[in-house]
């Protein structure tokens, strides 16, 4: 199996599907000739031409809006939003059209597209190049939301997303775009949507995370192991719909749970997870569920490493929850 980083793996998935299926088109700002600001679409323009790898004007509402029409006609559009911070001019299209088309047409017009967008902090980007808005899309019924943490998952989940009959928001954790390196299966390879991955087994405590923060959670879990705390670490991979069975099975086993995400705390995915765990595993809990998250502020420019829930902030939550 070839070794790839996440950028290469996503590029590989796009290329593979474009070769297989000529309904697949990619559109976005500088995705064509330039190959994307993170080089994710590099080479696709040369291979598939300007009709399939479409450089758009600076017009997020236009990008998503036209992708809706393309999908309704039967294409498989993959719009890219350059940074997830710039998705909001298109929020109306996503919330009012993309998410609701299937439902309000009585199932006649599914709106299958994959909106790819880099997410999260860690590159000193400040307010508008760092945010994690996933919860704002989960809250909109009708969208699936995916966030891989490894290169292989990025490929497998992207191919599954493109073939999924529903619209998918595909968040790419840019902090680990190049750092998340590993073996990636060649050719056709899918990872089923809605399935979490238990990447570390343990009996003391369940740790749930995704995207770039998964690595921080893993690091903290390894350090906790030095204190005899064996964490079970779950990589959600698909943020919505959640793999609730895997989560609940783990929490029933450990009785303790810590959730880690870099998005702001309030009304984040962590809050929903805690509710579900309370509803479905209340009698198994031996400690209050904990969240280690970003802050309820805009993403700051200077205090980035304080804002992010890095390993050193996660570790005390793990030990306290384990010893509660």
């Amino acid at each position, binding site marked *: 199996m070839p070794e790839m980083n996440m950028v290469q793996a996503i590029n590989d998935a796009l290329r593979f599907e474009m070769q297989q299926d000529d309904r697949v088109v990619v559109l976005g*700002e*500088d995705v064509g*000739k*330039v190959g994307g*600001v993170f080089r994710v679409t590099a080479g696709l323009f040369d291979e598939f031409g300007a009709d399939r790898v479409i*450089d*758009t*004007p*600076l*017009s*997020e*509402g*236009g990008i998503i809006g036209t992708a809706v029409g393309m999908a309704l006609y039967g294409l498989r559009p993959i719009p890219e939003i350059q940074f997830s*911070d*710039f998705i*909001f*001019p298109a929020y109306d299209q996503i919330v009012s059209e993309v998410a609701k088309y299937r439902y309000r047409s009585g199932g006649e017009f599914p709106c299958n597209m994959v909106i790819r967008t880099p997410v999260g902090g860690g*590159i*000193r*980007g*400040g*307010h*508008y*190049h760092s945010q994690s808005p996933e919860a704002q899309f989960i809250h909109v019924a009708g969208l699936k939301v995916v966030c891989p943490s490894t290169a292989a998952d990025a490929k497998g989940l992207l191919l599954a997303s493109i073939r999924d009959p529903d619209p998918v928001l595909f968040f790419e954790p840019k902090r680990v775009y190049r750092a998340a390196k590993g073996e990636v299966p060649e050719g056709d390879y899918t990872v089923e949507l809605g399935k979490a991955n238990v990447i570390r087994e343990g009996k003391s405590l369940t740790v749930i995370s995704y995207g770039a923060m998964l690595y921080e959670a893993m690091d903290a879990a390894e350090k906790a192991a030095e204190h005899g705390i064996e964490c079970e670490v779950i990589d959600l991979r698909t943020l919505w719909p959640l793999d609730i069975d895997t989560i609940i099975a783990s929490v029933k086993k450990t009785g303790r749970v810590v959730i880690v995400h870099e998005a702001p705390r309030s009304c984040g995915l962590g809050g929903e997870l805690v509710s579900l765990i309370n509803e479905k595993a209340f009698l198994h809990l031996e400690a209050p569920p904990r969240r280690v998250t970003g*802050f*309820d*502020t*805009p993403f*700051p*420019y*200077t*205090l980035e490493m*304080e*804002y992010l829930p890095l390993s050193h902030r996660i570790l005390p939550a793990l030990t306290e929850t384990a010893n509660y």
Partner: protein
Amino acid sequence: MKRREEGLEFFRQLLLIRRFEEESARAYSMGKIGGFLHLYIGQEAIAVGACAAIQKDDYAVTTYRDHGLALARGMPPGVAMAELYGKQTGCSQGLGGSMHFFHSETNMLGGHGIVGGHRPLAAGVAFASKYQGYPHVTLAFYGEGASSIGASHEAMSLAALWKLPIVFICENNQYAMGTPLKRHLSITDISLKADAYGMAKDRFVADDVFTVRDRIQAAVDRARSGEGPTLIEIRTYRFRGHSMSDPAKYRTKSELDAEKQRDALTRLEKQLLEDDGTKDQVAAIRETVEAEIAEAIQFAESSPEPGLELLEATTYDGDFAR
């Protein structure tokens, strides 16, 4: 006589911005400034000319490429540099960085990172000044790339309908990141957009700061006297990449060299050096600017980092933060 003094002052400002930008690029390369740094090098004549056309109490709103406008409006270079360094003494307490320059003393309403998003709010500022009966004019700068986004059209539509005292200044530097104008707009004369809203328009090249000032002045006068908004397209060029992380491979060196021939700073310096009434002062201005920049860097370097408490306290007024 007046023109000579003006010329020298314009030169000082153009040079200050140029040198500020060169030094921020250097600090960025050394890792002292993070994130995305969009330099104004090549476009200085627009901010300097525009600020010379407005009064102290007027308002200015711009994009993330905002250092030049802030300095031309009179933000102290040290405060600006400290913001780039993310220091507490920066104009936005170090929380914003390069793209978020705000300065209430000079009515500099930011630094905006969402392309086009600031244009409607600029119209709102103009509305408010008109509503309260103050003779203020608002300048709203944007890049030609912002022409396609909805907020741009909503802003112009409202500004024209309500005859607001605002001047939209399109800094057409020919590229929206890696995409040249002709690949992202169906027309390349951006000033034509004004016609759709029944708004006055103008269009010229930014190679001479006097021209920039005078042409913007005419629009500002119209706005101030109640004749409504103007859309001005000013052709310019950025000599560097879109931001520090852009190697600008999408354009040729010969194109860049040709554009540099029109550099308003070099041209003005040449004029000043050829004029016996000004030539002796050029070196002195260079020295003052150099000292000012050195002081700004020193100020930024020695200022304190923001403390953790800033993560919470600034979100709301008062004690609402948890």
